[in-house]
């Protein structure tokens, strides 16, 4: 019950911060529109399909999730930096209440963000002559959940260990890494070589691949990236929970 109360508070804190709308909604949608315009300028002979709306929409959805990481990190580090968490540590709240209270609202925001992204993509698709299939969109939402959990975990991790000044810097690095090495803005498969190997070792590429395969209804190719990103998400989330609990214990020493 205390988890739910803390969830409500975290949701209110996030939704009342204007930066949430700018970064979590505005920026990804602007990028979606810009890249769709860019796609119209690319000649068909270039065989570059990464910016076509059916590929762009899942890529931008993952891009948007990187900002959920930023907000997870800022929320935890701000609470830690102010005395607000001290007050709550003295209350009957348990560590699990804090973890759930941060994670669930961010997951909800991640899903809402993806839905708004897909609605915008649907409109762009209508203009450019592509029709999304509802089942594929829903499947893509499910495929995005491990990636959302992964980025929330990175946010919790950074927010637990760093203060509110250092944490955004680290998150910016991760956002850049996720965009480049995840293949959101470039076709990693066509580049190949060591870059592709690096991308395959890191989780971001698999998150983007899972979302794209789901959106295109490529069921036979969806399983592998989905399970890889799921395992990454669970492992990193476990580390994030341990980091939060360790920090809480050290704060209470």
């Amino acid at each position, binding site marked *: 019950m205390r988890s739910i*109360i803390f969830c409500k508070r975290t949701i209110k*804190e996030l939704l009342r911060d204007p930066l949430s709308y700018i970064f979590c909604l505005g920026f990804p949608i602007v990028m979606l529109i810009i890249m769709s315009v860019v796609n119209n300028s690319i000649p068909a002979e270039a065989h570059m399909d990464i910016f076509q709306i059916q590929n762009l929409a899942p890529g931008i959805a993952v891009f948007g999730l990187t900002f959920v990481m930023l907000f997870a990190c800022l929320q935890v580090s701000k609470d830690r930096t102010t005395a607000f968490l001290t007050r709550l540590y003295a209350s*009957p709240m348990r560590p699990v209440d804090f973890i759930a209270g941060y994670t669930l609202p961010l997951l909800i925001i991640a899903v809402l963000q993806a839905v708004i992204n897909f609605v915008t993509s649907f409109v762009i698709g209508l203009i450019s002559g592509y029709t999304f299939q509802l089942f594929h969109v829903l499947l893509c939402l499910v495929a995005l959940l491990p990636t959302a959990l992964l980025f929330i975990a990175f946010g919790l991790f950074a927010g637990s260990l760093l203060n509110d000044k250092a944490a955004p810097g680290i998150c910016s690095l991760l956002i850049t890494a996720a965009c480049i090495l995840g293949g959101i803005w470039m076709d990693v498969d066509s580049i190949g070589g060591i870059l592709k190997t690096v991308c395959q070792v890191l989780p971001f590429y698999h998150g983007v691949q899972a979302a794209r395969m789901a959106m295109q209804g490529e069921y036979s190719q969806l399983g592998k990236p989905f399970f890889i990103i799921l395992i990454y998400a669970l492992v990193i989330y476990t580390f994030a929970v341990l980091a939060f609990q360790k920090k809480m214990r050290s704060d*209470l020493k």
Partner: protein
Amino acid sequence: MSEYALEVRALKKTFGSKVAVGGVSLTVEKGILFSLLGVNGAGKTTMIRMLNGLSKPTEGQAFVMGHSVAQELSQIKQLSNISPQETAVAPNLSVWENLEFMADIYGMNREKSRKRVQEVLDQFALHEVEQQRAGTLSGGWQRRLSIAMALITNPEILYLDEPTLGLDVLARKELWRTIEDLKGKITIVLTTHYMEEAERLSDQVAVMVAGEIKACGTVHELYTITGKKTLEDAFVAIAEGEVSI
């Protein structure tokens, strides 16, 4: 049931080789306002952090309303609350929502929670800002809200850690009046380094120097012990070892 709100026996806290609190023993009667007076770094905050379970004692024992801090912390958490040194509010929640949040966290049902929010809004004269976001309030209002958030849970013992630190003179005097209104209703443990504050509000004062209680008594007892006429002079005499107690 213990006759004391607080019983502290040889409580010690060290951080590595640094002794923050060095074997303090004291008792605090129920219903009084007890001040821990000391300069910055004297160990006041560490002391109340230990009593709240926010810091684990290195040695010694402490009992809050008869409950052991080491073994019955969950019971103590329901009986006590703290207003930390820094203002501890959720900045994007309104005053009402901050109060309701705290009431809910301590397990009050919706009806009781709303009733209690109204009572505390009345008690702290917060109605005019009840819909305002806490982060937009002035320092004085935020501090008042912070104390109200601690009091909404109906604690039997309330810890106020440097409640007027950083406030202007008017906000400080206003907060003193609020604290005076609470006196006699619950036990209050207040830490401060403002002599005037301790003099005006306290039923009992403990002078803490370098992690140790150097003197404890009413303000007038401290005057008698030191032969001084103001608390500031008495404090200096005790802190600098001019008088041996």
